[in-house]
């Protein structure tokens, strides 16, 4: 067990409370500009449909960035993250003029002398969008 931040006792299996982020088309535009990824599948509905997608989809890396925010808020800041990985299993679909959810939860999977491993889940509209999502943070 690790006493993180003085108040929380952490052990394997500890569940971290769920958090819901909101994604809409404005989020995708802002992320495209901030990340440099201007792929039209993330902004242009006509283009997304033309390549066989159900609608505009969020950048996988935006999903991961938001899950990263969940991790860093829990761990106590961006500098705490040592390892972070995920597989992009399903897209987050973002119709026009709609707020979609990204719902994130985590469970403590390992506790070491100076780090904690979190297994993360991320869903949107009830569908799991990341696989094998894991972060290792310094205590």
């Amino acid at each position, binding site marked *: 067990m690790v006493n993180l931040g003085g108040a929380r006792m952490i052990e394997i299996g500890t569940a971290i409370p769920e958090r819901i982020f909101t994604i809409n088309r404005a*989020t995708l535009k*802002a*992320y495209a*500009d*901030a*990340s*440099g*990824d201007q792929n039209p599948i993330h902004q242009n509905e006509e283009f997304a449909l033309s390549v066989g997608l159900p609608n505009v989809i969020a950048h*996988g*890396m*935006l999903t*991961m*960035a*938001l899950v*990263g*925010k969940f*991790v*860093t808020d829990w761990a106590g*800041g*961006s*500098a705490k*993250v*040592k*390892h*972070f*990985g*995920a*597989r*992009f299993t399903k897209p987050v679909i973002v119709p026009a003029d709609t707020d979609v959810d990204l719902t994130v939860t985590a469970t403590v999977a390992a506790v070491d002398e100076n780090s904690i491993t979190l297994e993360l889940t991320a869903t949107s509209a009830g569908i799991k969008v990341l*696989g*094998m999502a894991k*972060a290792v943070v310094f205590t």
Partner: protein
Amino acid sequence: MLNPDSVGRTFEGAGSVSVTQSEIDAFAAVIGEVDTSVAPPTFSIRISLEQSQSILSDPAIGLDWTRVVHGDQKFEIFTPIKAGDTFTCSSTIESYRVAAGNEIVTVRSDLKSGSTIALSSWSTLVVRA
């Protein structure tokens, strides 16, 4: 198709990349992060994807970026990124296989400050048939 000779090779980027506070601020704003003294953990994708696209665009390597889908991503952060950092970047094609006609390529990108690696990231790229 990827040139089999590319697998296992490391390609060095030309020049260096500097990180500005306004780049970190813009990235942090999208995810609602107010502390921008260090970059969010996935910020480096901004540097590494652009750098690896440029480094691995040589036709002799044979990676068709127009058909690439991002399969997975991982980061190993040795030193958190801050504004004012300057990095050189290298890309290594770590593994390659073909599955159901798709090419699956794992690229490792290292951001280096001098000879010290600040961050390594791995991107699995699926080149769709």
